[in-house]
């Protein structure tokens, strides 16, 4: 059906109201305000800046640990200390090695784990607060709208089409069917966060890949209210060791917030060999360690969430500039892979993009020529300083922890060069080893159950993510060929989607097939419970056949990461 779409035009269209997108919007709004006040021509308007946010409200899909380096915020909002919801400054940074039964705190916390001067924050709250500033500045932030498709004009990016609303699960229009808008802009900024769905397509279309493919991790988080006295606000611990085996890369975190609230979680590189490894179960297992048990005993789970993170680093960053568009934040891989810090780099990338866009608006030239100023600004900023030093960090660990430590030790003393520069790596999903096909895969519903007090099964956790989607809509997880699931994948990898999805979206249902003439045979069918999706993008990343394409569902759907 050919759809008639309403067209709107903006000067700048930012897809995503996260730290990068909002920093871009706010900084640009400030530049425009100064510009207009000085009487410069042409007069610009902050109302011509549109920001799209697929969540129900600003911040709804924001999840991070988080420890925030305030340096970018200090540039963006100079009096941030008075007004930003900073929760608590970091007071104690610990690095802890866990074995199955004991814990050992490093007497000297290694530099990557030192966080003096940083803040323990809820990214959801920071983004909400930033969003209010952006809206006060006159920028139009459209909540419950996602970017579904890129619009090209003469091979330049000309804008974005938002998702169609009011289609039923078979794709047929309902009474309130409203087709997506064609939003055109002089500059489109992709700030979709990790594994952005438009970014993925732009990178493929324009061949923006760097010399290394992107590497991703998955972060699984729970927010708890614990008994008084168990943890001090500002206590920050990172754990290594149990239960992450040495051939995997990952570790846990424990951050003390104010009022006996604790952020805990596990980050794991999506590069492990066993396709049936279950990151959610590993996280629940980690909580049973005596160190964690003591902290959480008597406490209450407040919220759950999960998100992937792009930590390929400098050599995996896609080219971030094309005619008509810029890529910032996690979508552009602006993340320090050693310290796993991306908030300040996302903000800084947004601000540098704003400065570049301001030039484009002033001169009326939004081609890659002017927009290329973004990359030069990035290279002259502390973004490069920080990321260059750790440019080979993540790739060092592709063959296990021990070799990783050796490489990174050398990198530490050579300003990042180390023994091999650049260290090449391949996509994480390529690390999957084929399984022994004779061993049947575990039935998803027989898996980790949890005790309901300290540990939880996936469904209970998903409930606490507040995620909802209107169920009468097309499934937003496009699996290109479900035959592969029941013929090849079941044999070769044991259907890993059932294990790596932290939200119990994918299920291989066993059905009795009575259609075949010869009696009853059992067959498998891929069931997609898309309403559980927390928008972490893990499936898009980790599927060994790369046939899962995550697209934006109807706006408003997704998790509700209040306080995360």
């Amino acid at each position, binding site marked *: 059906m050919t759809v008639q779409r309403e067209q709107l035009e903006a000067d700048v269209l930012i897809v995503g109201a996260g730290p990068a997108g909002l920093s871009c919007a706010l900084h640009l709004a400030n530049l425009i305000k100064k510009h207009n006040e000085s009487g410069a021509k042409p007069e610009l308007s902050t109302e011509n800046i549109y920001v799209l946010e697929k969540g129900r409200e600003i911040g709804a899909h924001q999840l991070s640990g988080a420890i925030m380096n305030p340096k970018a915020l200090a540039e963006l909002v100079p009096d941030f200390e008075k007004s930003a919801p900073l929760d608590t400054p970091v007071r104690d940074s610990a690095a802890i090695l866990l074995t199955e039964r004991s814990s050992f705190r490093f007497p000297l916390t290694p530099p990557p784990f030192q966080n003096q001067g940083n803040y323990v924050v809820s990214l959801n709250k920071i983004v909400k607060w930033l969003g209010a500033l952006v809206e006060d500045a006159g920028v139009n932030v459209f909540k419950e709208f996602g970017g579904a498709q890129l619009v090209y004009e003469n091979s330049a990016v000309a804008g974005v089409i938002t998702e169609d609303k009011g289609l039923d699960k078979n794709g047929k229009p309902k009474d309130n069917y409203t087709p997506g808008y064609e939003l055109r802009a002089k500059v489109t900024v992709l700030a979709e966060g990790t594994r952005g769905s438009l970014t993925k397509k732009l990178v493929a279309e324009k061949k923006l890949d760097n010399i290394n493919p992107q590497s991703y991790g998955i972060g699984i988080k729970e927010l708890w209210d614990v008994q008084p006295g168990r943890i001090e606000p500002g206590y920050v611990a990172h754990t290594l060791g149990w239960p992450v085996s040495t051939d995997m890369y990952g570790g846990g975190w424990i951050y003390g917030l104010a009022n006996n609230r604790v952020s805990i979680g596990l980050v794991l590189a999506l590069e492990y060999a066993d396709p049936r490894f279950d990151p959610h179960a590993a996280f629940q297992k980690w909580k049973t360690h005596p160190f964690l048990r003591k902290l959480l005993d008597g406490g209450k789970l407040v919220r759950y969430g999960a998100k992937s993170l792009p930590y390929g680093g400098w050599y995996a960053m896609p080219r971030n500039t094309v005619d008509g568009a810029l890529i910032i934040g996690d979508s552009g891989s602006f993340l320090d892979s050693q310290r796993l810090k991306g908030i300040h780099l996302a903000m800084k990338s947004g601000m540098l993009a704003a400065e570049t866009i301001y030039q484009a608006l002033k001169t009326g030239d939004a081609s890659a020529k002017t927009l290329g100023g973004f990359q030069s600004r990035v290279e002259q900023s502390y973004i490069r300083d920080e990321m260059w030093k750790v440019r080979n960090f993540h790739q060092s660990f592709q063959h296990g922890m021990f070799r990783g430590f050796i490489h990174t030790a050398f990198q530490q003393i050579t300003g990042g060069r180390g023994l091999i520069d650049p260290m090449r790596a391949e996509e994480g999903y390529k690390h999957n080893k084929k399984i022994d096909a004779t061993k049947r895969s575990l039935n998803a*519903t027989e898996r980790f*159950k949890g005790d*309901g007090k300290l540990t939880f099964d996936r*469904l*209970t956790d*998903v*409930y606490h993510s507040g995620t*909802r989607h209107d*169920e*009468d809509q097309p499934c937003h997880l496009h699996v290109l060929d479900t035959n592969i699931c029941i013929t090849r994948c079941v044999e070769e990898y044991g259907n890993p989607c059932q294990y790596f999805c932290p939200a119990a979206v994918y299920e291989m249902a066993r059905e*009795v097939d009575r259609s075949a003439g010869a009696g009853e045979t059992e067959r498998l069918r891929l*069931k997609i*419970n898309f*309403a559980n999706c927390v928008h972490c993008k893990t499936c898009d990343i980790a599927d060994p056949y790369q046939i899962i394409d995550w697209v934006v569902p109807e706006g408003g759907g997704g998790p509700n990461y209040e306080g995360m």
Partner: protein
Amino acid sequence: MKILVITEQRQAKWNNTSFETLAAAQQIASALSGTVSAVVVGKSVDALANELAGKNIAEVLQIEHELLESYTPDGFCVALKQVIESAKPQLVLFPHTYQVRDFAPKLAAMLGKGMIGDCVGYRLEGGRLVFVRQMFQGKTAADVTFLGDGPWFASFQSGSFRADQVAASEGGAKPVKRVTVELKAEQIRTKPLELFKEAKSAVDLTQAPLIVAVGRGIKAPENIPQAEAVAKAMGAEIAASRPICDEGWLPMERQIGSSGQTVAPKLYLALGISGAIQHVVGMKGARTIVAINKDQNAPIFEIADYGVVGDIFEIMPALAEELQKAK
């Protein structure tokens, strides 16, 4: 304490919840040494009034008027205001019906009083009446008390009391007093037209007093008729957890849970439902919960009043049969 119970009838047929309220009134009266007057409103309602006179109450107030034959909010409010002003009760009780929702708050407001509606029960705390109602769609209960003098107005949710517990009068029929009220046609602003029945396009499970729900344990759509047979034998509505509706085995309006309906029926029979929290939040307000599941560790048993660890395919037919026998 003088208690007035406003019963409900339409075309000479009782709305049976009126008797649940009568039972509640008798209980309150007996605890507080009060009296109960039952009110019947309409035209030519002698038979109904006499039926009420057979109950253990102080009296029946029969309100007759041409203009009260059909319900209108204006008619009932103008008439009952006069009744209350003359009878001077301390407490006026109603069954919480669609009709009561339509006029009772206004009646209270006309007398400058408030109403506590949709109560699921009451308590006596040191001689003080505390009414209990639900909030947050059954997730919480709330204790509410009246402030100031009566008359106080309250309605009870259907099923919160048992109609068959209304005590009959010992020693003959109670007096029936005909009460005249002044009511003029111009005081009634809305005009009721024809009543008609329609197959409802949407199922409203929130109004169903009995619900039989199926979960993954039902395994295939061709097994659902077995559960429907149990529902039919019980006079219950059929409902399901999300996976069943996702598959299209039952329509989405029958889904119970955080992404479906939230219900608080008298009885919820969960067949083959594990009790995931997404489902439980939609039904844990049910008064009596029965769970049948072959997994003894299924979380549903944590909230069930009665549990059976067993095979639903063996129990469903047996249950349908027993329910038919008990009819």
